[in-house]
């Protein structure tokens, strides 16, 4: 049907297309430069010359995980813009180079290499899923580079080259299980997505329940992206005929299907309260507060946290991205990690000597929207733990918050293989995994 191309035409058209695309790329690079790096528009004298500090932002802007990671990029860019407006770091403006990990773990590793070797960034803020972090970890260790990771995760890792500004399990999962045991019941059904975080998290929960007198009556895993949850709901009903606690580590789209169908099946939060660790304000908005009202979530930060820093953060965010946007825990962690890096660089008086920055980062405190956080020697943050209940407007009523910041424990103490291990990067002889005497 199609007209045949002879060779001469093919070469002509081919080179025309090629030329046009190069032209477009050239036209495009200047405007996109201003959007990715607010620096150039803010201070013209910093533009172009070697007067900027380059940092990398590496999240999924396309693919499955774009749902969550896009807003984290927004938060990081907000922080960078604020810092630049206030004069930058060491008198220089920060220039952010945004790369798309495309929800594909090898791409994350590839782009990390590109940011480090080609763009010569001094640090990278990035990743969301544990799978992507595990994929890039070898790159950062090999290059002896630096990654700031903003999401709560399953622990069992403590790399010299990563700073973890989300919660370790003992700052989210464990306190929430304790709270449930005390307030909601002893019988737990564990539901999770089928990948590394929920499986590790549930291993921890099962060990903890066994230690504290709770009972795991069942567990099930949904493949990522699966939205048919009827079999799981039947299992929950069979395992918990008189009600009980559902501990939910589902991620992404499955959450929506799970809560919509849970309500349809008549399992309400009065008899079947659920605790989620991956459902924050953004997700509540996407699922619909009508389905989630009365369910619980455990985080370190909620938009409703009452601190002056948080009011400022929420206002700044809404002013930049729109009144209908919400803030959540990973976004806040992403926002504060930029500031923590800035403080570390300022203390070290250099951005390029990563070993000095790493040492300077330890012990940094920051008045974050969630309250004051401290970067501990094990590269994790001491944070306040909070539990929130979903209310009508899709935000959380905070029903519990720890009276002081909880110190992070990356190596889990309930799991036999890692019991007794700790991590301390302030002392080179101890390192990432050692047994304290």
């Amino acid at each position, binding site marked *: *049907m*199609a007209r045949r191309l002879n060779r001469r035409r093919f070469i002509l058209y081919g080179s*025309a297309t090629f030329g*046009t695309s190069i*032209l477009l790329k050239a036209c495009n690079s200047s*405007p996109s430069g201003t959007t990715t790096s607010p620096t150039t528009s803010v201070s013209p004298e910093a533009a172009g010359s070697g007067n900027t500090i380059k940092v990398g932002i590496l999240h999924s*802007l*396309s*693919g*499955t995980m*774009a*749902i*969550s990671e*896009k*807003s984290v990029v927004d938060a990081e860019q907000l922080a960078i813009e604020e810092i630049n407006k206030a004069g930058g770091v060491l008198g220089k403006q920060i220039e952010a180079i945004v790369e798309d990990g495309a929800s594909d773990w090898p791409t994350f590793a590839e782009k990390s290499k590109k940011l480090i070797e080609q763009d010569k960034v001094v640090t990278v803020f990035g990743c969301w899923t544990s799978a992507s972090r595990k994929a890039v970890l070898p790159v950062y260790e090999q290059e002896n580079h630096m990654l700031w990771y903003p999401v709560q995760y399953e622990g069992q890792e403590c790399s010299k080259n990563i700073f973890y500004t989300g919660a370790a399990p003992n700052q989210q999962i464990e306190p929430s299980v304790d709270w449930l045991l005390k307030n909601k019941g002893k019988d737990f059904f564990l539901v999770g997505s*089928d990948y590394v975080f929920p499986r590790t998290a549930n291993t921890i929960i099962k060990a903890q329940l066994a230690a504290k007198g709770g009972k795991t009556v069942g567990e*099930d*895993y*949904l*493949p990522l*992206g*699966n*939205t*048919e*949850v*009827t*079999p*799981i709901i*039947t*299992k929950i009903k*069979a395992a918990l005929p008189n009600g009980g606690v559902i501990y939910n580590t589902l991620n*992404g*789209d*499955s*959450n*929506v*299907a799970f809560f*919509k*169908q849970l*309500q*349809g*099946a*008549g399992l309400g939060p009065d008899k079947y309260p659920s605790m989620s660790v991956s459902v924050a304000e*953004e*997700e509540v*908005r*996407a*699922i*619909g507060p*009508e*389905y989630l009202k009365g369910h619980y979530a455990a985080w370190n930060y909620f938009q409703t946290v009452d601190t002056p820093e948080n009011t400022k953060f929420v206002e700044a965010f809404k002013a930049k*991205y*729109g009144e209908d946007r919400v803030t959540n825990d990973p976004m806040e962690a992403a926002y504060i990690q930029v500031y923590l890096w800035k403080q570390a660089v300022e203390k070290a008086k250099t951005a390029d000597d990563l070993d000095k920055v790493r040492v300077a980062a330890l012990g940094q405190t920051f008045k974050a929207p969630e309250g004051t956080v401290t970067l501990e020697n094990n590269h994790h943050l001491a944070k306040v733990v909070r539990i929130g209940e979903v209310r009508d407007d899709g935000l959380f009523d905070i029903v519990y918050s720890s009276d002081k910041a909880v110190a992070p424990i990356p190596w889990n103490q309930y799991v036999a293989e890692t019991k007794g291990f700790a991590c301390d990067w302030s002392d080179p002889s101890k390192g990432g995994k050692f047994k304290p005497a």
Partner: protein
Amino acid sequence: MIAGLLDGLFNGISIGAVLLLAALGLAIVFGLMNVINLAHGELIMLGAYTTFVVQNVCKLLGGPWFDLYIFPALVLAFVVAALVGLVLERGVIRYLYGRPLETLLATWGVSLILQQFVRSVNWVLVIEIACFCSLFFTAWWFLSRRSHLLRIRNRVLGMLLPLCLAIAIAIGTFLGETFKLAVTQPWFGAQNVDVTAPSWLRGGLALGGLQLPYVRLFIIGLTIVCVAGIYWFLQRSTWGLRIRAVTQNRSMSACLGIPTQKVDALTFALGSGLAGVAGCALSLLGSVGPNTGQNYIVDTFMVVVVGGVGKLGGSVLAALAIGTATYLLGSGTLALLFLPVKPLADFFTFFANTSMAKVMVFVLIIAFLQVRPGGIFPQKGRAVDA
């Protein structure tokens, strides 16, 4: 026991109904036209997004409107998806009939474009596209009307293309700079959006020990209506007759004066519209986001292949069978049933979670296709030409 059986039956049917509804459009596009449309999932997604928009409009109107938004949403989802399908057929697929590999790649590309489109669509983008299309196609139209310009048409269009693009981008950038957030903010964004079932569809019908969710009942009803509607359309209406004729023998139908091109476009639009309806219904159960379609695409192809390409009845049966198997395996009902027989019970317990149930269903399907490669109801007689 009876309650358990009923429960199993109902849940199996409800899973099957979801599969069937999602696969109906594909059963027409892939089954009747033999077009491997990998963008089918994205047409479902467009239906879901249409529902989201209609819901928000109805929310603004308030009161009784909000409770009934689902009905206009169903109609609009059909219309939107059918129009996009029509454009897709006229713009891409009709050039690729009879070349399944190229169709596969092209529709895959279209699906990626549609996904990224809903992520990044904002006023600037829409205005840019509108500007470009109006400029470029007016020029095209003008050039093709003047016969004396025909000789230089290609060269002029080649020059006009970058020009129109540049104008469109310039206008877009100008608007973006002037109105800032108001026009550059994405309509939907990369995040999932929330579609809430109207209040009368939430909760469920208590029937003895079990509860039948209203949404599931609604979807089962909708599926029945859709299947009946398609059956009527294909078997009883003039256009249905033409579609069947073209499916059976394209050149003969053309000889007899059936406008095959129109029939192709209509069939494709119908299949796409059904995908839109599916998207509307599925938004009540699952998530609405750029990836919604991908969650269903594999399952829908599975249903059509197992059912037998070209047979609606086969798709119905296949969807019900796959749904029931998924449910019985995944919920552990079979494990309970075989409790007395220890090794069998152990075997089924191993498969009694969602991931492993999926594995088991795939194994069963592969085994089945070994026995009957043509699906449940294979196409008989002369091979259908493309």
